[in-house]
Every structure is written in structure tokens, then in C-alpha cells.
């Protein structure tokens, strides 16, 4: 509700609709007598202090009549919408319940009705069912039904293909019950939102019918009827027609704005994403930066409003030619860490760090333009879904060449040549032909190669690969891992490889950083991973992973409970409630301390 009032449109819609409802309730009791009082002494008067909108041919005050007509107009619009929605929802839901042949017939009928001009449908029904309010309501209601039917059908079809519907069908639940228990409750929200807008449209359409003389008949009156009565006099006293016209317009606009705002409030979450600036709230680190490191991050924290902190004081250093694996479960903050380095944390997230150095420059010291140039030429990012990095409408070669033309000022022909060369380098067969193809013509593994080739258009110093093989088959995964290793060795770049799969990390990386609930809990050389891990979480992760040598007669290790969400992380060790070794000391946060050579662990009980 609060979000509804935040936008001007939502606020205006809410106010207008509230006004209309209040008017419908209090209008007739207050002004009813005035609106009906015939005064032969004041026939067809214009605007005056006594009659603000003039009087009609029986001397009745038009302002009072406009205020009173609100109730009938709104009630008729409501009835109309209910008729349209009820008929539409039934028609739209039938295909999901009927056997195949019946479903096709209903779908075909709905399609034909949608194609039929709705005004014609309304008039046709209105004329058949008789002149007057009843005819108009039925007519417009029938005209609204196909739209509702189509919406219901589309929504129902998407829910009907959900796994939970398949599961209940397999359990032998009858179609009708699937409809009422699964489908209708899950499509109710968008349907109700649509009702509000339909109400506005019905109001306008009814006013139109009354204005044409097909709607409300005297002595009853709604806004459309008043408009009809006043229209003849529009040239000498415009106020008599403008009064009801303004009322109709305000109500129509109000309902449409409210419907729009409701729909937008419901779809919130798809909000616009914009990069958050890297803040500098944390004091700069006094120690000397590591001159060798490609990437040096100290105390990186990512915060979202409401105290949600998915990344908490993370430090990380990567040397040239080194592949560092960042492992953790979903929600551990590993991907946000990568986004923070690339300046891609979505709004309203805020990034702070006491140091964030890439290739020897402090990212905070650079201007926006310098930063973009540095990230554009020396950082290559590879994501899980290669289609997210490729534009489906453009040829592959062109997308690669763009990197050279934008960041390196190369000519088009030269850039294209380099693109083909890079595609060849990542072992894409027939690179010249592939460069002219679109992304959809390639397999998933090939696309991932293209993304890597795109990173190689410049001279990458840092490669961030975020779950690059998760969507790929194991045999293709193996090839991509090899390619990453080869590219790292050749370019001397530092590679940050992010994955939930500890086996893949163990196979590819030199060093492994384990994250849990936003913090690094252990950092160790890969040789130590299988048997030398010190943190109970790392050990449990390794033990719970079946591999080709796991003893099949024993149950697998599993960790009870679940990782706390970023908003639930307390001040102590976040793993304590799932940990067998937990003691009273774990209420205090264990620091990440050295534990043997190139090995650091954050645990009080590790020994």
C-alpha cells in the first residue's frame, strides 16, 4: 500500500477513486432531493451563483444531478465489470478443465471474440436485450469478457505447466480440483489488478452508451445521460455538458491510474538496475599495498538497505597467473563479491572497502571515465549464462569487434580480423564462418567460448568467471576448464573462479577461498582441500560430496540446518548452530588467522 502512494500516479489514482467512492455513498442522501426538485421558474438557466452548472429543461440543478449520478454510474460500472470478469474467467478457465476437443472449441471461440470489434459486440447485445440500463450493462459486460478470457487463458496456461500441477495430476487429482486449488489461486492477483482498470473502461463505455441514448433512460440518470441531455446546449451554456464530462473523465482516469499503479506495485522487484558507486566510508588501510597483486581487496562489504549485508569484510589477493577459487553455497555472497569488483552491484546496494586495487590503481582514486576504461580493457567477466553477455540480435564477430573499436580505437576491418583471430584462439572451428553467425546458432559450450574470446579482445589482467560451467554438460565443462587454465597461463592474468561445486574448484584452482554467510571462513592451497581442511564447514562440504571413490555402504555426511540469510547473520560465528565443534567462544566472531603455510582459517576450535 505504501508503494502505491509513493508514485504521483498511484497517489492521484488512489485519491480520485476514494473521492468517487465517497461521492457514491454520500451523494444521493445529501443532494438527492435537490437533484429531483422541479422548478418551473428556473428552466434552462446558465451558470449562476445559485446554480453553479446551470439548470436543465425542468429547472433542476445540474451540479446536484452530477453529484447524485455518481452512485448509479459507479454501480452500473461495477456490475458490468463483474459480468465481464465472471464470463471471461469461466471461458478462459474452461480449456484447462475440458477434454482436448472441447478445449480447442472454447479457445477458438475466445480467439474469434477477441478479434471481433468490442463496440459492435456491445451494441449488438444491448439492442437485443432491450434499450436501457440493463441492455447497456449486459452489452458492455459481454464486450469485456473476451479480454478477460484471453488473460485468464494465458495465465492459466503458464501455471498449468508448473511442476506442482504435473505432480498433482500424477497423484490423480481431478482437473476441476486442480483448477480450483492450484490454478485459480495462483492467477488471482493479476486478474484482480486487471479488474480495476476494466472498471475504469466500463465506466467510460457506459457513459458512451448513455450518451448515444442506448443506456440509462429517464427518469433515471447517470453521467452519460446528463451529458446527452446537456449536449444540445453545449454552444450557449458549455458548463451543463462539461460538468458530467469532467466527472466521467476524472473517474475513468482515477481507476486506470490506480490499476496501473497496483500492477506496477505487484511487479516491483523487476525494478531498474543501476550500478552503485563504490563508497569510501571505511577508512583507507594504512599498510602498503601489495605491488605484485593484480587484484587486492581489503574489508569489502556490500550492504543493502534494511541492514542486509551479504558480503562482510572480505579480503582477497590474487597474483598474476594464479587461479583462485571462491566456493560457497547459494546466498554465501560469492557472486556479489565478483559484482563489487566489477562495479556491477545492483542499486540500492552499497559497496565499501578499505582497499580495492586493480592492476596497481586504487579504483576509488580514479574518475568515472578512467575506471570504466580500466575495467573495460583489463577485466574479463564470464557468467553462468553466456546468453546474458551476448546480444541475440547481433553477429558474434561484430560483438567481439566492438570491444576493440570502443576501447582500443581500432578500425572496423582490423577489429573484425582480431575477433576472428580470438575465436580461433579459443578453438572455435571455422572461426571466420562462426563470426558471421548469431549466438542462437551456437551450442552452450561454444557460446561460453565466445564470451571468453570476448574477454581476450583486450589484454585481460583479471578474469572473473562466475559459475561459467554450471549450465554445461560435464564433457563440455572439462573443455571450458582447460581453456580457462590455458588462457590464464598465456596471458598471465589473475583468475577468480566462482563456483558452488567444490570438486570443480578443486580440479581447476591453485588456491581456494571458502565463503559462508558473507565471510571468508577458510583460505587454503588446493592440495590441502581433500584432506587438510581445518574449518568444520569446509570439511563437511568435502565430506558431503560424493565422488567416484565414495564408500557406497556408508551414509553421506550432511550438515543439519541451513545457512542464515544475509539479514539473519549474528555477531558470532555464523556456522556455530550447524557445527559439531561449537562452544561458548563461538558467540564471538573468530578472526581469519594463519594456520600453517599459505593457509588461513576463521574458527576458534580448529586445531
Amino acid at each position, binding site marked *: 500500500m505504501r508503494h502505491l502512494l509513493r508514485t504521483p500516479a498511484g497517489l492521484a489514482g488512489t485519491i480520485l477513486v476514494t473521492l468517487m467512492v465517497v461521492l457514491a455513498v454520500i451523494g444521493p442522501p445529501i443532494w438527492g432531493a435537490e437533484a429531483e426538485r422541479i422548478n418551473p421558474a428556473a428552466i434552462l438557466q446558465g451558470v449562476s451563483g445559485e446554480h453553479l452548472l446551470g439548470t436543465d429543461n425542468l429547472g433542476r440543478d445540474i451540479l446536484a444531478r452530477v453529484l447524485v449520478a455518481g452512485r448509479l454510474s459507479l454501480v452500473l460500472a461495477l456490475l458490468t465489470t463483474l459480468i465481464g470478469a465472471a464470463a471471461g474467467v469461466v471461458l478462459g478457465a474452461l480449456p484447462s478443465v475440458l477434454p482436448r476437443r472441447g478445449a480447442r472449441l472454447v479457445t477458438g471461440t475466445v480467439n474469434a471474440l477477441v478479434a471481433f470489434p468490442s463496440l459492435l459486440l456491445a451494441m449488438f447485445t444491448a439492442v437485443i436485450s432491450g434499450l436501457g440500463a440493463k441492455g447497456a450493462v449486459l452489452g458492455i459486460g459481454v464486450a469485456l469478457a473476451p479480454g478477460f478470457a484471453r488473460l485468464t487463458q494465458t495465465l492459466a496456461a503458464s501455471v498449468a505447466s508448473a511442476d506442482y500441477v*504435473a505432480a498433482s495430476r500424477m*497423484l490423480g487429482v481431478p482437473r476441476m480440483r486442480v483448477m480450483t486449488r492450484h490454478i485459480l489461486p495462483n492467477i488471482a492477483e493479476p486478474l484482480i489488478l486487471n479488474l480495476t482498470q476494466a472498471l475504469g473502461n466500463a465506466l467510460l463505455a457506459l457513459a458512451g452508451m448513455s450518451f448515444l441514448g442506448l443506456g440509462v433512460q429517464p427518469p433515471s440518470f447517470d453521467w452519460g445521460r446528463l451529458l446527452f441531455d446537456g449536449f444540445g446546449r453545449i454552444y450557449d451554456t458549455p458548463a451543463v455538458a462539461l460538468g458530467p464530462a469532467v466527472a466521467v473523465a476524472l473517474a475513468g482516469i482515477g481507476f486506470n491510474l490506480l490499476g496501473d499503479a497496483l500492477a506496477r506495485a505487484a511487479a516491483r522487484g523487476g525494478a531498474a538496475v543501476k550500478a552503485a558507486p563504490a563508497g569510501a566510508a571505511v577508512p583507507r588501510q594504512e599498510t602498503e599495498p601489495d605491488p605484485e597483486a593484480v587484484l587486492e581487496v581489503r574489508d569489502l562489504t556490500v550492504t543493502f538497505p534494511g541492514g542486509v549485508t551479504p558480503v562482510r569484510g572480505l579480503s582477497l589477493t590474487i597474483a598474476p597467473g594464479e587461479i583462485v577459487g571462491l566456493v560457497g*553455497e547459494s546466498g554465501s555472497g560469492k557472486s556479489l563479491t565478483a559484482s563489487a569488483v566489477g562495479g556491477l552491484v545492483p542499486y540500492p546496494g552499497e559497496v565499501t572497502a578499505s582497499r580495492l586495487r586493480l592492476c596497481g590503481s586504487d579504483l576509488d582514486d580514479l574518475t568515472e571515465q578512467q575506471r570504466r576504461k580500466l575495467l573495460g580493457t583489463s577485466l574479463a567477466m564470464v557468467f553462468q549464462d553466456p546468453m546474458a553477455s551476448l546480444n541475440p540480435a547481433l553477429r558474434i564477430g561484430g560483438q567481439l569487434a566492438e570491444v576493440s573499436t570502443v576501447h582500443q580505437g581500432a578500425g572496423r576491418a582490423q577489429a573484425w580480423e582480431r575477433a576472428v583471430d580470438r575465436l580461433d584462439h579459443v578453438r572455435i572451428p571455422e572461426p571466420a564462418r562462426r563470426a558471421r553467425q548469431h549466438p542462437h546458432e551456437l551450442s552452450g559450450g561454444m557460446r561460453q567460448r565466445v564470451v571468453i574470446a570476448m574477454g581476450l579482445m583486450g589484454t585481460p589482467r583479471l578474469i572473473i568467471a562466475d559459475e561459467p560451467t554450471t549450465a554445461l554438460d*560435464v564433457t563440455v565443462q572439462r573443455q571450458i576448464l582447460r581453456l580457462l587454465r590455458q588462457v590464464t597461463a598465456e596471458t598471465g592474468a589473475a583468475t577468480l573462479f566462482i563456483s*558452488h561445486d567444490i570438486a570443480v574448484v578443486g*580440479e581447476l584452482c591453485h588456491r581456494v577461498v571458502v565463503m559462508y554467510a558473507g565471510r571468508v571462513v577458510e583460505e587454503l592451497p588446493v592440495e590441502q582441500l581433500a584432506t587438510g581442511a581445518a574449518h568444520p564447514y569446509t570439511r563437511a562440504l568435502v565430506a558431503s*560430496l560424493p565422488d567416484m571413490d565414495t564408500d557406497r555402504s556408508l551414509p553421506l555426511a*550432511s550438515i543439519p540446518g541451513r545457512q542464515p540469510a544475509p539479514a539473519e547473520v549474528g555477531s558470532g560465528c555464523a556456522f556455530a548452530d550447524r557445527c559439531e565443534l561449537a562452544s561458548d567462544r563461538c558467540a564471538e566472531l573468530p578472526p581469519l588467522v594463519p594456520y600453517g603455510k599459505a593457509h588461513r582459517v576463521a574458527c576458534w576450535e580448529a586445531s
Partner: protein
Amino acid sequence: MIIKNLTVRFGAFTAVDDVTLEIPPGAIVGLVGESGSGKSTLAKAVTGLVPYRGEITGADPRRIQMVFQNPYASLDPRMTVGASVGEGLRLPRAERRAEVERLLSLVSLPAALAGRYPRELSGGMRQRVAVARALGARPELLVADEITSALDVSVQGAVLNLVRSLREELGLSMLFISHNLAVVRYVSDVVAVMHQGRLVETGPTEEVVGAPRHDYTRSLLEAVPRLGRTS
């Protein structure tokens, strides 16, 4: 249950090509293959979700149940755990409640969970609820399609342990589908390897993993990532 010469075509495309496979009572048959190999289509044919040619004998089609890959999509977000688990039960209200409790305890979940909504549960717990729902139909065969691939490693172990205990305690037959050979090896008695719609190798787990006969099986085995191995 025996699947005999089963073929599924979508237009001109043959997704499953003449597959014959036996699932002995009380055994877990693991089906591995890469995306597009036809393993999920085979699962859908077995559960009656897609039309097929061929024969499936030895099982009542109404007593074949399936557990889906994504526990976030396979439970109705607007129904409580108890309502989801009890949906297929044809029992009077009082008995239904007791049965839901029994089913939840079979998958080691507390009875108190019945009143909760799926959004309050972790992925591993949701997957166990989905298994409990399927068990309510007293299935002769449970088809598990990639049931651990959407889960984090730390909860995957618990679900795999559950799969094995169900076989031991209830004697449940299962078709366990996964792209992860290590997972299939851990739970299955028999492993079947699918490639481009065809079954290329079938045999007892230790044999297929230890002495693969088909080249494709060998390349799959080669590609399994291993901790601490550098290739």
C-alpha cells in the same frame, strides 16, 4: 517393471530411440546422460506425461510417481506443506492428518512442518516434502529426475541418504536420473547410460563405473571433476 522398445518422437525429432530397460523390484536404476540425451523425456514417458510408442509392463501406471528437479517450482506456493502432501490422499479428514504425519516422518521431517508454507523451507526440506507427497500414492516406482541438481552440496547429501533409506526400508523401486555420475554411482544398483536418445550401456554399477565398455561411458567418466586432480 520393464520398459520395452520405447520411442518418443516430437515431429521429426526422435528424443528417445528404442529404449529397453528393466527396473527390478526394490532396485535403484540410475540413468545418466548429458542434456539432450533424452533422459528426462524417458522419465516423462514412464510417468505418462508424454505419449510414446512401445510397452511398459509390470507396473500400474497410477502407481508411478515422480519427484521433480526444482523443489522451488514443484510445490504450490499457496498451499501448506500438509495440504500438498495430503493432496492425493483419499482419506477422511482425521485419518488424513495422521497419514500426512506418517509421510513426513518417512522423509525425516517433523510433523509440525505440516502447517508451514514452502517459502519458509530450505531447498533440501522442500525436496523431502515433494518425496513425501509422492510416497502418499504408495508408488510401485518412483522416478527422481535430477532431484539434487538444484540443491546446495551441504543438503544434497541428506537427500541422497533419504533415497537410499527409502529403498532399504520400503523396498521402493526407483528410476534415478542425473547428469552427475558420482551421484548416480553412489545411490544406484544398476547404471544405464543414455546418449542421443539411445541407451549405450547398462549394467551393475561397479561394472559400468569400474570397467566401462562403451566409449561414451568412458568419456563421461573421464570428465567427472575430482578434488585435487589436475588435468
